[in-house]
């Protein structure tokens, strides 16, 4: 039985930033994380983080407003414009703050933070540290946590959010190291659990990004928003699906088809070329592949960096080169990189406002797990890292300022919830399952890859929804974790993770099926046009054991009226 | 300032390297002089005769060589000893013992060389 005023679940960028803020405001904070903070998937972010610093000589007149417009346009006008303004206005302050905390950004000649062009942005405003920006930011924030002596519960796996009277009371977690189930009472809970990439099979996401962090509050009645918007990154390496940063194209890399042609010129203007937003670039690549212009007729095209030269690659993209050599045996200095679009990011998530608050009192969310809706239907590269530090901080601040400590009551409630979870886990171990849970989860992923991918279509998606529902029933009924010891029972962990993945998969597929238009990353072959009259609204899903209940809510429009999106 | 500040070790480290460099020359010469350029059995007289040929050189030579060697040897041994993370008390005792043996052997060595330089006693 443990109590902290504020409990933060997840120790990626958003979680750490929230912890720092709440701790600086003098609150008793603890961070629960299922992996060591430095193993968080934030560290895998490569390209950079957007902020209108106007450091780049080619972008001296950049402003947060221009950043906001690019973001809204990139989102295909589904982003909430008030939230976007908050994000872009706070961006420079957050970047300077990170820099003061030691984040080793790359530099321009004049000693300022270097900025590179990125997809969908009219100005070069993506601040970067070589091609390891996420890694640098994660380490800088973790170091600040070390400085503040923030309490971490490492390798504690949160299984349940405790909610009573529509108010968060704490969480129940499994201590992986001992196998004990522990109750964490708190007066405020912030979820910063990251994305849901592992719902798909072909994804750039880490093994730990399963979507369970979205599923747990979902099960407690918290609404989740816009889950059908799944970003496919244009450039993931074949076979391993590891990300090749957008920075590759930002630095001037080419996309080539089997004829050695820069095919992007057939789709977008000559000025933009490879730097179109991710949804568009991914569709272009997929179209080339579908029409037989993949390399050797295969399911991939080339990302060519050779013309950048050895010096530039070693300076700006050393990590990319290492990955290519390690995982493909290809040296990008000498050979083009075989790539195809790969699931990369979930625009949707827990429905929050721009203070991180949700429909449940004292429950907050931030980062990829949340959907403030700054990304709308398609996120711009470099905005996800920005989202984590802006809204992570705001969630931490808001939670700390609105804190009403109710130690005794919450402890009692959390303890009761713990007992239920102990019973639940004991029940799981009682009878062995007939089916291999990993096998069922794999089938779910295949369905998602094949039928809820880049191009979507009615019949396929109907099939997908039915198949996943069927698989979900089999998973819960017929598969069980093995009854091995208590200490580091990873099988139990993965079993619970995949349960979350499957429930979120249902929401993605159902939301996609319902949305009869094409917008941003949601591209339907049977409804190829955007339909602002009927569909300029957010999908909101609420949990129900049979099927998620889907409703809609309006988009906040302030300055920018929707126009046709051209690049 | 943090709580875990310990005695710094730059000079021990530096002298280990300086003496190493000295020993390259002195130990090398010592072996060449006494083992390679050798005719017949070494006796007190043969060594004394060799030394008498150039007493100042040998005096300076061994007065540097012996302390350097002892420092290098015992500092090296200390390094091996600390590798095994001995308790604080053992460190103090061993450190003192190393200094005592080191200094006594230096004195002994210098007396021995002196007596060889002095010829038959």
């Amino acid at each position, binding site marked *: 039985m443990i109590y902290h005023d504020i409990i933060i679940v997840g120790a990626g960028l958003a979680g750490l930033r929230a912890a720092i803020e709440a701790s600086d405001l003098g609150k008793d904070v603890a961070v629960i994380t299922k*992996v*060591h903070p*430095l*193993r*968080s*998937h934030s*560290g*895998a972010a490569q390209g950079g983080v957007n902020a209108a*610093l106007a450091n780049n000589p080619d972008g001296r007149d950049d402003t947060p407003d221009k950043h906001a417009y690019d973001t809204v346009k990139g989102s295909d006008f589904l982003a909430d414009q008030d939230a976007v303004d908050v994000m872009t206005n706070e961006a420079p302050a957050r970047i*300077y703050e990170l820099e*003061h*905390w*030691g984040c*080793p950004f*790359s*530099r*321009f*000649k004049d*000693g*300022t*933070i270097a900025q590179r062009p990125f997809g969908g942005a009219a100005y070069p405003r993506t601040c970067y540290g070589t091609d*390891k920006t996420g*890694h*640098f930011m994660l380490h*800088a924030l973790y170091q600040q946590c070390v*400085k503040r002596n923030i309490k971490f519960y490492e390798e504690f796996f949160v299984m349940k959010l405790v909610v009573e009277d529509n108010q968060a009371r704490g969480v129940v977690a499994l201590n992986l190291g001992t196998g004990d189930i522990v109750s964490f009472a708190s007066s405020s809970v912030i979820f910063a659990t990251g994305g849901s990439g592992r719902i798909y099979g072909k994804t750039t996401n*880490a*093994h730990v990004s399963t979507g369970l962090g979205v599923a747990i509050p979902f099960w407690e009645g918290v609404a989740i928003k816009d889950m059908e918007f799944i970003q496919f990154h244009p450039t993931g390496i074949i*076979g*391993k699906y*590891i*990300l090749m940063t957008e920075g590759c194209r930002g630095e001037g890399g080419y996309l080539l088809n089997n004829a050695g042609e820069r095919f992007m010129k057939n789709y977008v203007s000559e000025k933009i070329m490879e730097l179109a937003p991710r949804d568009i670039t991914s569709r272009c690549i997929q179209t080339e592949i579908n029409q037989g212009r993949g390399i050797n007729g295969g399911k991939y095209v080339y990302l060519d960096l050779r013309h950048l030269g050895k010096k530039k690659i070693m300076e700006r993209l050393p990590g990319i080169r*290492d*990955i290519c050599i*390690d*995982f493909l*045996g290809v040296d990008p200095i000498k050979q083009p990189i075989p790539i195809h679009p790969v699931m990369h990011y979930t625009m949707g998530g827990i429905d929050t406002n721009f203070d991180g608050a949700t429909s449940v009192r004292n429950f907050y969310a931030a980062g990829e797990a949340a959907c403030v809706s700054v990304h709308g239907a398609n996120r711009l590269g470099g905005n996800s890292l920005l989202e984590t530090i802006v809204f992570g901080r705001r969630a931490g601040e808001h939670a700390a300022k609105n804190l009403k400590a109710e130690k005794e009551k919450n402890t009692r409630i959390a303890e009761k919830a713990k007992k239920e979870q102990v019973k639940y886990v004991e029940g799981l171990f009682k009878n062995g399952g007939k089916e*291999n849970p990993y*096998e069922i989860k794999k089938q779910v992923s295949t369905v998602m890859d094949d039928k809820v991918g880049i191009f979507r279509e009615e019949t396929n998606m109907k099939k997908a929804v039915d198949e996943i529902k069927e698989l979900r029933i089999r998973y819960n009924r017929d598969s069980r974790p*093995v009854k091995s*010891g*208590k*200490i*580091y*029972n*990873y*099988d139990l962990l993965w079993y619970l993770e995949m349960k979350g993945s499957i429930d979120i998969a249902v929401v993605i597929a159902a939301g996609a099926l319902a949305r009869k238009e094409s917008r941003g990353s949601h591209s339907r072959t049977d409804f190829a046009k955007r339909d602002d009259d009927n569909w300029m609204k957010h999908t909101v899903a609420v949990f129900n054991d049979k099927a998620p209940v889907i409703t809609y809510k309006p988009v906040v429009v302030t300055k920018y009226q929707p126009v046709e999106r051209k690049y | *300032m*943090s709580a875990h*500040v*310990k*005695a*710094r*070790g*730059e000079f*021990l*480290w530096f002298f280990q390297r300086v003496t190493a460099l000295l020993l390259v020359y002195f130990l090398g010469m010592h072996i060449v002089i006494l083992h390679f350029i050798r005719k017949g059995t070494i006796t007190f007289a043969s060594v004394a005769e060799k030394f008498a040929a150039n007493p100042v050189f040998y005096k300076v030579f061994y007065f540097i060589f012996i302390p350097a060697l002892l420092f290098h040897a015992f500092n090296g041994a200390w390094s091996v000893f*600390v*590798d*095994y993370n001995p308790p604080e008390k053992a460190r103090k005792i061993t450190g003192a013992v190393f200094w005592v043996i080191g200094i006594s052997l230096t004195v002994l060595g210098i007396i021995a060389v002196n007596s060889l330089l002095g010829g038959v006693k």
Partner: protein
Amino acid sequence: MEKTFRILRYDPEKDQEAHFQDYKVPYEKGLTVLEGLYYILENLDATLAFRSSCRAAICGSCAMHINGQYRLACRTQVSALNSDLITVRPLSHLTILKDLVVDLKPFFDNYKKIEPYLQPEKAEPAKEFTQSEKERGKIDKLVDCILCAACYGSCPVASTNPKYLGPQALVAALRFINDSRDGKTQERLAIVANDEGIFRCHTIFNCQQVCPKDIDPTNAILKLRGKSFMSKLTGKI
């Protein structure tokens, strides 16, 4: 085609001693050791415990001993090992908690000892601290460290002297000393320039050999020695 994965197993709830267990894993081109471990977990033996996260060599979860060397399991291609037998052990010098999972607390404690956060002396400017490309170049590589602990596991000194800060913490110390924005060089040197720090290193180069990010911790330690000596001699850096 199949490869044999020989894995060091240890379950504290059952076993007195660690022992090897063999698994047959189907091989196809491009198989990494981590994928092999996942195959075992998902299909052969769900009791196997190992850490992993990003599977792209950036999170540092999966450092282990694979066929004669400490490596990241995720970026180690089975084909590159040129062997039908893949022997996998956990990192050395750290208590095995289960199978390939070790207790990294001593390792992270060492990291925390060097005060691993920027401590600027100057007041924070309204914008960024400027840093020339050359100054930024001084922390290149050093900032790439992913704290995977492969260097620590390979260091024979860390084996016998748990108080030794170890290669990783010393790399981190140099990373801050070399950072033009940091103002606590002397204090940082005082933390590392002692018998449990840079002078415990015997230039064995194992850390250099195993570092998956090619950082060369041995060299970092040599540089720290030079700096600490000069600072001791001249009273400044």
